[in-house]
């Protein structure tokens, strides 16, 4: 939240779309183009596209239960060097406060569902992320990326 507050006066972009599978790709392309304008590298934009898609699919499927009349809102705040993205749904999905994604070995042993890797993948690709229920209903998921990670990318 502190990170977000520093971006209030920076460039903002927003895209809203119905909760139908397929629209996450539209949001993905829009956010990628915005990040490109901010000077993010191709490698980081690839990460950003993956994370945006994962988060939007979660919002469509779990948050808004694939109801097209429910809207997913994606807001980006950024400047050259930093990008903050939030994805907001209108659903009633309750976040378990003790959330812990099942491990890959649990999945391979059949002890957990094959799906449910989204949050882990997101964690690998962004600098910081989080989610919270909103008072008026729905969930706000957010993540942040800094351009300094370009140096990290060069080393891997």
């Amino acid at each position, binding site marked *: *939240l502190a*990170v977000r507050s520093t971006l209030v006066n920076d*460039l*903002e*972009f*927003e*895209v*809203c*779309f*119905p909760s*139908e*599978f*397929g*629209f996450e*790709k*539209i949001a993905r*392309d*829009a956010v*990628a*183009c*915005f990040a*490109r*304008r901010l000077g993010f590298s191709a490698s980081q934009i690839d990460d950003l596209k993956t994370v945006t898609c994962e988060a939007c699919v979660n919002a469509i*499927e779990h948050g808004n239960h*694939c*109801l*097209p*009349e429910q*809207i997913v*809102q994606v*807001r980006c705040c950024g400047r050259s060097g930093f990008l903050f993205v939030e994805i*907001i749904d*209108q659903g009633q999905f309750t*976040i378990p*406060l003790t*959330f812990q994604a099942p491990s890959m070995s649990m999945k391979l042993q059949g002890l957990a569902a094959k799906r449910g890797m989204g949050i882990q993948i997101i*964690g*690998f690709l*962004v*600098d*910081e*992320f*989080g*989610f*919270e*229920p*909103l*008072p*008026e209903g*729905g969930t*706000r998921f957010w993540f*942040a990326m*800094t351009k*300094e*990670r370009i140096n990290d990318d060069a080393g891997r």
Partner: protein
Amino acid sequence: MLKNRISIGIPIETDHHLMLRYRKNGSGGVDENMEQSRYDTATTDRIVELRLPSRLGYERVAMDTAAALARRMGFDDQRIESLRTAIAEAVTNAIEHGNAQNEAMKVTVLLTLRPDELVVSVADQGVRPLNLDDLDASPRIEDALARTDKGGWGIWLIRSLMDEVEITTTPAGGNQIRMVIHLEH
């Protein structure tokens, strides 16, 4: 640097007011098959809304987003290029003239998907209202050559590329251009 820190927050006050941008045209229900593309259902409009900062260059976000939508709807490459050019002109006008490049002001782009057409509406906040009486006249190349400023071709270009064009003033006083491109089967 912040790195992979997960935060689960508590409810906070927020200024987000999600606008309902979904309208049913008929009595048909919503397709429940999640795996199927929804663009072929004839009963609904689907609206994607963009809000862009008024900074030149960010018209590309609208161009790319509209192109991605049009591609999924089945428009061919040539029509998509026409759409991109028309949106570039409309959004650039909104940024440069309508909002006078005030980055705090937003350009709103509504992309309405219908089974046989894509409707694009570009609206600014109207710092400099368009003179609607001047927009019907076709620009003349001789006049442009005589001027230092070679601009003024945007509306003419949009009209040449889109199937329907309508320019109005929003209730709030902003400029709005509505463009329709038909899907040719």
